[in-house]
């Protein structure tokens, strides 16, 4: 029993980073400085100016499904989650103020106190009881309507919260709180002109009684006079060619913003018919739009997990990019230079994502063509990518026409440019093969780089740099070096050994081993039945082994010295992933509707580690990410995680990883550190002090950072503190004098400021008595002594230094 406990404790499968930031509309704080968005079970706080992730509000145990500013206090935010709680946070300090337990699953949160729960999609008003306790159970709930859409953007509060408008399918309902009356209006499903009238989103005008609704065919209707059952009226505006995803009025009500799949932000002038402005090419389709309360900032959430911050002058001023996980076609890769995770990002791009910082680094445009956001278009997509071992070369394959018969594809090779610190296109090969490229890999030798591609035309080709005589001498382009095939069988996979002395290419059931130097086939290995699926060489001490998986649920291990099967085991392996830094190999097996993970060394048939039921979907993509500094876990079953970390992507596009207990502690502590640092407003003065504080920490652990963080008006007189402060610096200074003088000037200026404040401080002394009282008698005496001490010798010390 104890064992199991520890086991569970140590290995925690965690959803790591890259969770959706576009699930719900982000909100901008009243002062437009912070942007809050629900992301996984966190509420992330970003700075609107720098787009930096400041901190996150941790505490929910499940997906956060809605956030709303506290109307009573603009520095607080409510959040609700599928875990059935509504939490109130101070989002600047990241402090949890209050928890309300409501035992329903919240779909989202709207304004005052109305939420929706997803089982039957009801709109309920939750009365949040006023109580001083931190944890309160909210029991009072009243159902407003059960005719609401599962899409939260189909519900909106009207002018001053007097009514709420919600739509489902073809019906728009308006519920007036004061009269407790619902008015409903329906549209026809279609008309002769083929309009699709289903509602997709709603927004209410802040001052006028006007409801804007978006429809499936891209129309926007503005409803008026909806208090009357019959005399209601609406006007129609049409620009979007596909469903309107979101609508939002500016706080003054002068403009209406709309967005859809076109990824164009449209600003309609309210009351002026068709006058509109566009902000095109924003990336993925727009899912949400929100506006700051002063109307100066807009922000749009996009389907490619991105938030764009836009100024009201229609200029993009910032992009918060999450990990794009839709439409991943490439394997998960690690850029050897930046240690960033590389996979499909924006359409036609590769994204580089730092897992450590949970931050998108940059996109590399592979296709270099304008992407048209429209459903049903066949456009180029990056389907394969591979890095060489040093990270100086990147090979990509882009394809168009996967569905149709006329397939187009390009093989591109990118060289890393040290000067620009990015990849530059070196060679484009238009017809690398006559049919689709199945797989490719770089040789791992340090001297020469070679790329091997295998394709459905039954051939494998080796590509080398500068082998073609026709090309110019000064530029080294890639060209084909060798074409190989084996009995016209279709190749299935290829792999280089760790030292690149051997190349294994599997042709259906047969594995052929080639020598890349002479291009001579050394041997063939075969273990029927079943087509070879994955192929990998062992590393380090196990490099004599070759591992292969077959479609017939067989995991085989050949010994290359004896050319014989070392062992085989019957497991259905969907993904085989070797760790580049150790002998370990991770195998993902999908059996009876859940995925198990095995980590083993090819030399030992007994797995180092097994974890059953990691997730319920198949895993096709996994990667070992080398750690920056190795852990020192002595526990046998977690040693495999010491040097690198295993990340894998499920079919639901959840990026999961295994984490150890020590790691989690570290993450927690670091986040706390962050919280303290961010509690002080980022002002020039803070920057000055902050730098000082850090250095001071190095100098003297005894110094009082609290002194610097406490507001000036609650501090005792500078004259009281100054000498103590200086004294404390002096004591620490004995060993490290050199660093001291560089800070001297800063201190001076600081003292000046404090002196200026002293006049006011005297006046408010009464209120800060308790602070002063904390100084003990002995300290006071010390202070007096220090004050009398002559510091003139310090001047000499400064002068003596250059």
């Amino acid at each position, binding site marked *: 029993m104890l064992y199991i406990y520890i086991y569970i404790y140590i290995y925690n499968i965690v959803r790591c980073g890259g969770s959706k930031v576009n699930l719900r509309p982000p909100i901008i704080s009243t002062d437009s400085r912070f942007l809050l968005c629900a992301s996984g079970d966190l509420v992330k706080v970003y700075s609107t100016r720098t787009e930096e992730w400041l901190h996150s509000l941790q505490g929910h145990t499940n997906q956060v499904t809605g956030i709303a500013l506290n109307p009573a206090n603009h520095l607080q935010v409510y959040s609700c989650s599928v875990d059935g709680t509504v939490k109130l946070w101070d989002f600047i300090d990241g402090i949890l103020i209050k928890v309300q337990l409501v035992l329903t699953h919240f779909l989202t949160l709207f304004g005052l106190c109305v939420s929706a729960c997803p089982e039957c999609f009801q709109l309920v008003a939750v009365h949040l009881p006023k109580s001083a306790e931190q944890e309160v159970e909210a029991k009072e709930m009243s159902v407003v309507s059960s005719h609401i859409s599962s899409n939260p953007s189909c519900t909106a509060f009207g002018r001053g919260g007097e009514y709420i408008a919600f739509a489902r399918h073809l019906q728009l309902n308006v519920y007036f709180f004061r009269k407790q009356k619902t008015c409903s209006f329906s549209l026809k499903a279609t008309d002769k002109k083929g309009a699709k009238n289903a509602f997709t989103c709603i927004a209410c005008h802040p001052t006028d*009684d006007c409801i804007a609704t978006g429809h499936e065919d891209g129309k926007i209707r503005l409803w008026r006079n909806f208090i009357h059952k019959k005399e209601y009226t609406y006007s129609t505006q049409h620009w979007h060619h596909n469903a309107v995803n979101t609508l939002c009025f500016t706080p003054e009500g002068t403009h209406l913003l709309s967005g859809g799949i076109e990824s164009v932000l449209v600003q309609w002038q309210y009351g002026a018919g068709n006058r509109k402005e566009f902000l095109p090419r924003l990336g993925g389709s727009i899912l949400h739009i929100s506006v700051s309360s002063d109307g100066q900032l807009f922000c749009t959430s996009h389907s490619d997990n991105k938030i764009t911050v836009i100024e009201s002058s229609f200029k993009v001023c910032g992009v918060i990019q999450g990990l794009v996980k839709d439409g991943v076609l490439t394997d998960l890769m690690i850029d050897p230079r930046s240690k960033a995770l590389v996979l499909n990002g924006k359409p036609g791009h590769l994204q580089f994502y730092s897992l450590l910082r949970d931050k998108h680094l940059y996109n590399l445009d592979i296709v270099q063509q304008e992407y048209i956001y429209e459903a049903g278009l066949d456009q180029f997509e990056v389907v394969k990518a591979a890095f060489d071992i040093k990270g100086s070369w990147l090979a990509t394959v882009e394809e168009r026409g996967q569905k149709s018969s006329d397939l187009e594809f390009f093989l591109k090779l990118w060289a890393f440019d040290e000067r620009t610190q990015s990849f530059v296109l070196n060679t484009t090969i238009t017809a690398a093969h006559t049919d689709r490229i199945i797989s490719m890999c770089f040789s791992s030798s340090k001297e020469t780089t070679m790329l091997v591609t295998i394709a459905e035309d039954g051939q494998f080709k080796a590509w080398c740099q500068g082998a073609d005589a026709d090309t110019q001498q000064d530029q080294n382009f890639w060209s084909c070096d060798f074409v190989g095939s084996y009995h016209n069988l279709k190749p299935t996979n290829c792999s280089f050994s760790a030292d690149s002395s051997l190349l294994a290419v599997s042709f259906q059931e047969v594995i052929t081993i080639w020598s890349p130097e002479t291009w001579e086939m050394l041997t063939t290995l075969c273990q029927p039945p079943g087509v070879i699926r994955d192929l990998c060489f062992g590393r380090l001490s196990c490099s004599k082994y070759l591992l292969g998986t077959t479609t017939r649920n067989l995991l085989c291990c050949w010994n290359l010295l004896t050319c014989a099967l070392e062992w085989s085991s019957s497991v259905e392996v969907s993904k085989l992933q070797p760790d580049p830094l150790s002998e370990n190999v991770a195998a993902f097996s999908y059996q009876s509707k859940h995925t198990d993970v095995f980590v083993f060394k090819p030399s030992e048939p007994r797995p180092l580690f097994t974890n059953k039921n990691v997730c319920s979907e198949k895993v096709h993509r996994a990667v070992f990410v080398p750690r920056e500094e190795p852990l020192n876990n002595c526990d046998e079953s977690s040693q495999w995680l010491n040097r690198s970390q295993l990340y894998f992507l499920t079919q639901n596009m959840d990026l999961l990883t295994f984490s150890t207990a020590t790691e989690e502690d570290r993450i927690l502590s670091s986040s706390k550190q962050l919280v303290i640092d961010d509690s002080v407003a980022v002002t020039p003065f803070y920057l000055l002090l902050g730098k000082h504080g850090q250095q001071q920490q190095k100098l003297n652990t005894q110094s009082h950072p609290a002194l610097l963080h406490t507001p000036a008006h609650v501090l005792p007189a500078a004259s009281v503190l100054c000498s103590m402060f200086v004294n404390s610096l002096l004591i620490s200074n004995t060993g490290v004098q050199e660093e001291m003088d560089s800070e001297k000037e800063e201190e001076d200026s600081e003292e000046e400021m404090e002196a200026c404040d002293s006049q006011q401080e005297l006046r408010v002394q009464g209120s800060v008595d308790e602070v002063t009282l904390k100084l003990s008698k002995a300290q006071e005496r010390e202070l007096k002594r220090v004050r009398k001490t002559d510091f003139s010798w310090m001047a000499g010390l400064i002068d003596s230094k250059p």
Partner: protein
Amino acid sequence: MGEFKVHRVRFFDYMPSGIRALAFNRDTERMAVARMDGSVEIFHCSDRFFQEKIIPGREQCGIEGLSWVGERLFSAGLNGGITEYDLTNQKVKYTIDAYGGPIWTITGNQQGTHLAVGCEDGTVKLFEVNEDKIQFERNLDRQKSRIVSLSWHPSGSKIAAGMMDMIQIFNVETGHSIHRMLADRGVGTSRSKECVVWSVVYLSDGTIVSGDSVGMVKLWDDQTGTLIKSHNVTKCDVLALSVSQNEDSLVAGTSEGTVVQFQFVSMVLGKDDNEWVRTRTFKNHTHDIRAVAEITTAVVSGGMDAQLVVKPLLDKIEVRSAASALRKIHFPHRRLVFCARKSGLMLFQYPGHLELWRLGESEGKGIPGSSLFVKRNPEKLLHLKVKGEDHIRCSAVSPCGEWIVYSTASSLRLYRLHCDNNNVSITKISKLPKVLSSANQLCFSSDSSHLFSASTQSSVHIVSLSQSGCKFVGTLKPKSGSHQAIHLLAASEDGEWLASANSDHEVHIYNLQTRKAHCTVPVYSSAVTAMGIHATTNCLFMMYADQQMCEYSIEQKQYTDWSRTVQRKGLHRLWMERDTPCLNVMFNPQNPSHVILHDTYMLCIIDQSLPLPDDKTQFYNQLTLKSLTEEQRKSHSHAFKVCKTFKDILCVELISDQSLVVVERPLEDVATQLPAPIKQKKFAT
């Protein structure tokens, strides 16, 4: 249903004329429509928009404006004259010259005392409406540019005039201009083009609404003469404006073919701060909309594409019914095609000429639905141009094909046709009796021996025709005092009876032997659209505009039992929902119980021997019946057999060799002959 050989005629190149102006009379619920060819039509709005009266136009008489003053209708045109119409006799009463050059607009005040016309020379002329004439009163201050549009303030004390680049407000008392409001020209290249204020509407709260050639609908304040708000409605012109009676809704017609509605709605519910807000857009036209009118429950619009569109406003309709559905009126509710039943000749009536065609012949027999080989092509025998400037009001060809007659507003001409083999010649009958100076409706007796000519005061003149010439026989006068013009005549097959229907919905039956009025069919609330006298039973079968039907036994002077059954059981819902009136009633001589009817979209045979359908039975049951066996068929069949093979039917006639002539005028063909519409960017092109 019976088998017929059908002549499908598509060589009648009838072109409806574009609509230029609309005027709605709220008291009588009549809509006056002026067309490009100068004709004026009166539609009855509450009687399913039946075209009650047609006053044919003249050459070179373009009407620019229409206005009702009480129950009197005035028009003005570019020939510089103001015309009043005699609606009883459906003709022009008089025309007087305004002496101001071409007139662009005419409007009467709500009090019914004055007419104002806007002239090319920049004057607004006021005419006093007298008992039987109008009298020029005075000019308002003369302006530099032409007056394009005018609108009276409901109080009658002020007039707003739309001109080139500006709007003027005149005080009617003093005749001086109060305010001058400049309309902006367009931006860019259109800056050099002047802005035409095509339409103005003066609201009672002092707001002036203008629609101009820049595509803006602008709201002005008449106190300060300032712009309150402007709505950009279109890239092209806003040509017409109309406001509802209670001034809470406004419609604007544009040259893109759209009608844009504005509504006066409160911005905050429950408060009284209303604003004009653009709401709905209707697109039912392909071409410029030259005129719109907002009537009580609908928006009526007409334009270059010659169709009158009635778009119901659903928020103003209490009960939705067939009477309040979207209606598009393409063709006149009168017959334009006449058949000489016995000789296979067809007479097509165009505004300015007549065409006589001989039907083609076919060979052999085919299975139902197949087309037969044409042995002889149809042949145009005659092209008869009208003398004078007036357009044809009515025409007829005798059943034997020997006589052709037509009438304009001023004259009636009778021709005799000589047809031996391929030589066709006509001779005009020169000595016509004096009573035949003009006719509202013309009809031949079935043996072609007599001509019936409907004249003023609902009287019918009878003229006997012979080889030598024609002779006036007598006049039939109704007993009632109605003076409305007759629009339908029907003579019985045996030559004994004549039925006439007039615009007061009265149907009189005369005995031709005694030349006396025989009886009057009880007056029904809806207008008669078609009628025919049965050959054997001598029953008068009548179709009404509201799709009701009646059979009246002439001999017994009462409705027949079948007719009473129909009234009692009611007609099928789908029958009542048809939106075009029946235009012809025929009887199948081979099966006396069959009545053949047609409207624009269908051909129907009513078998009076079969049971009537009720609302539960399947109305269009032809396909179902086909799949059933002989016995089952009997239990499923009902009286209405509808054939929808033909579309856009102008006329269906049964000719003597048991074949049907169906004259179609496909709307696509009409559309191709229209001028090109304004080019519009269409999405994804």
